[in-house]
């Protein structure tokens, strides 16, 4: 996987399933040329997406979750601070759709408010990983040589560390630190920042590898060579030719990962080291529901259900997008 700056094989020798997608772009370009129509790859992908029912289902779910994250009061009449201890651990009823928890708070309201933290972590982590991973992958693939070796080896090192393990170590050591590099890391956004930071720092290698092999495949193409012969600057070549043709697999994988990050955030919060009360998140709620699990399983059930649906929605969307961008699967 090293120093194959000129490699063009259908399957680059690198590990990881992500890279199997790397052939996509080139194949798509070839397909497009053979087709003879003027449709771009993206337009083509969107056309196929529109016909995919999974795309519509997952999009609808994601829109609802996004709306919950932005405007939770739209969904519930209760205030987040509402609680009535004398009515603790009630089962679902007309007044409390999902029942009440140990503190007598409305579980439905808390679940709706919990969406914000999960979605924020998922979206921010995915964006961060996509940006950092693509940038490094682009540099490694395009520049090649010792820069590639350096970035790839660095990626291997970070790739070898399990994300959850490093999350536990990192977050538990920061638990009592008020600021990191001058940024306050306690409080709602502070803790979200911590979690996102961990995911970005240790999640970029897979996307870097994917991007790198994509770039390596696009680079020797005729249109890139032509642009170079015409005297285009490297920046222009990257922006106009390499990036648009190499980006698709990275976006696909990032979308699928979004769901995985939401699940990882919930895991860390459940362990008590991710988001912490009074911040509401699904992981925190699942943790709260653990003690009364035997007597009142509904306290744990509803946040867990929402978590599963959200993760499923993002993974389904990622799947649909992958299908659209991968002509082989059509």
């Amino acid at each position: 996987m090293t120093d194959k700056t000129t490699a063009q094989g259908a399957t680059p020798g690198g590990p990881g399933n992500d890279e199997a997608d790397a052939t996509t772009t080139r194949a798509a370009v070839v397909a497009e040329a053979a087709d003879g129509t003027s449709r771009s790859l993206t337009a083509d992908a969107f056309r196929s997406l529109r016909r995919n029912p999974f795309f519509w289902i997952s999009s609808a779910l994601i829109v609802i979750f996004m709306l919950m994250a932005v405007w939770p009061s739209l969904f519930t009449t209760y205030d987040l601070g509402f609680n009535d201890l004398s009515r603790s651990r009630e089962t679902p009823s007309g007044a409390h759709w999902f029942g009440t928890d140990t503190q007598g708070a409305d579980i439905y309201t808390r679940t709706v408010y919990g969406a914000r933290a999960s979605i924020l972590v998922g979206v921010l982590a995915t964006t961060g990983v996509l940006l950092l991973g693509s940038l490094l992958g682009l540099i490694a693939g395009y520049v090649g040589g010792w820069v590639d070796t350096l970035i790839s080896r660095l990626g291997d090192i970070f790739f070898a560390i399990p994300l959850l393990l490093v999350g536990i170590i990192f977050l538990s050591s920061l638990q009592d630190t008020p600021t990191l590099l001058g940024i306050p890391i306690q409080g709602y956004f502070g803790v979200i920042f911590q979690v996102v930071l961990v995911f970005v720092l240790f999640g970029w290698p897979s996307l870097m590898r994917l991007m790198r092999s994509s770039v390596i495949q696009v680079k020797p193409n005729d249109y890139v060579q032509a642009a170079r012969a015409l005297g285009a600057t490297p920046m222009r070549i990257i922006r106009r030719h390499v990036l648009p043709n190499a980006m698709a697999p990275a976006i696909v994988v990032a979308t699928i990962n979004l769901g995985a990050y939401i699940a990882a955030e919930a895991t860390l919060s459940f362990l008590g080291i991710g988001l912490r009360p009074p911040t509401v998140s699904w992981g925190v709620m699942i943790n709260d529901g653990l003690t009364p699990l035997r007597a009142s399983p509904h306290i744990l059930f509803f946040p867990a259900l929402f978590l599963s649906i959200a993760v499923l929605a993002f993974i389904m969307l990622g799947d649909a997008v992958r299908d659209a961008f991968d002509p082989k699967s059509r």
Partner: protein
Amino acid sequence: MRVKSRAMAIASISAVALLATACGGSSDTDSTSGGTAGGAIVSGGCNPENPLVAGNTAETCGGDVLDVLTAKLIHYNPETAQPENDIAESIETKDNQTFTVKIKKGYKFHDGTEVLAKNFVDAWNYTAFGPNGQQGGYFFEPVEGFKEVSDPKSKVKKLSGLKVVDDHTFTIKTTTPVSNLPLRLGYTAFAPQPDSFFDDPEAFGKKPVAAGPYKFDSWEENSAIVVSKFDDYSGDFGGNSDKITFKIFQDADAEYTALLAGEIDVVRQIPPSALIDNKFKTDLGDGRYLEKENSTFQFVGMNYHVDPKLKNVKVRQAISMAIDRPTIVKQIFNDAYTPATGWVSPVVDGYKAGACGEYCEFNPEKAKKLLKEGGGYDGKLTLSYNGDGGHKEWTQAVCNSVKKSIGIDCVATPSVDFKTILTKLGKDEVKGLFRMGWVMDYPSIENYLSPIYGATASSNYYGYDNAAFQKKMSEAGAADTPEAANKLYQEAEGLIAKEFTTIPLWYGKTIIGWSDKVTDVKATPFGNPDLAAIKVK
């Protein structure tokens, strides 16, 4: 200082608990004899924090084991907590200041040597000596010469108040009169140590020798501690079963599951998950569990010298009246606690109900009125708690109750562990409220007053300094009879009620469960199962 860090069994799943599950290890419990004595029992246990040295054990994990290993001058009756002579033949005093202790002749350590007066005096000197850093050192505070000996850099190795008269007699002289001194002598820190202890205390702690009903057999780290019946036990409080294995568990849920599976015979506590809706009662069935009030006392402290917003006593009383104790106890603790009516646990000698009066009753109307009279409270009020002790639910509930009743924006704020909070408290850095707990060291009202509210006491985190209180306490210490002393102590408690620098919350309850293989399980007033008394069916 024996402040309590844990409310009850911990349900909070920590990273550690998830990664490290309770260690297994096969148990050999199946030697049931069917008789009333003999047989082996397996008790749930936890990892002792320190080696098993009586003077250096201030937590229950090691304390449970030492309870059956050691014999002390005094033995507390498991039922009534009344002191009974064990090694002591008699403890006499004329002025509550000089005590003459006569010990029984022929009392044997597990290694066969006799318990002599010097074993007590040497052990106590060792524990009190500052450079030894023993956790039980503060118990010797009343003894003359403690100040010089207890300094961490001290060169004085002997308490001037302790004197060996002959092999079976020694005297204790206290700095000021202490009427209840004999009552205190049953605590583990006052246990005698055999001569072999002083040769190598470090190694001794891994293989302790004492004079109690059971002798030490083996200790497999993180797995089990085994003790067996001491055949030459000389006291009156011998054990019933032949062998006790303390199987070590990392969390209460695992321990409870092991009980249900028949792997262990006694659990020291029922985990919160089984307390909910009294699940444990159906899990275990009638006659296999027991509920009994214990000495745990939970309260909320504050230091208004550090936080001037709490300066007015009416504000503090208003906060207390805004806490709906009965509902919290019912919904959060599933009645494993009882709402407090004063600052002293009902299980101790000298307890008087109702010291707190109406201020410990939930009354939002009156609370609002008091808050107004006291000038109100602006801004956020934090209630700090240690995140490692399972306090999240109730601190949140207390804050919710305060917020709802009198509109103060109360936020329960976790701190990593108990040590962190205590360190911050020591530096006067904690504003607002903080949770506190107390378990008695010895069954006396005095134990709930002087270590907490004495002007220079080790556990006074509240900046409480009241000359009238000090005077009452020393008067009580010098009182002729325990009854007279208790009356004075109760008056001292009244002074605390006036100042209201701590808010009483609730008293603890011991709930223990056992398997159908054992019988005669009783709980001591300290909240532990009385292991020596347990019989195998």
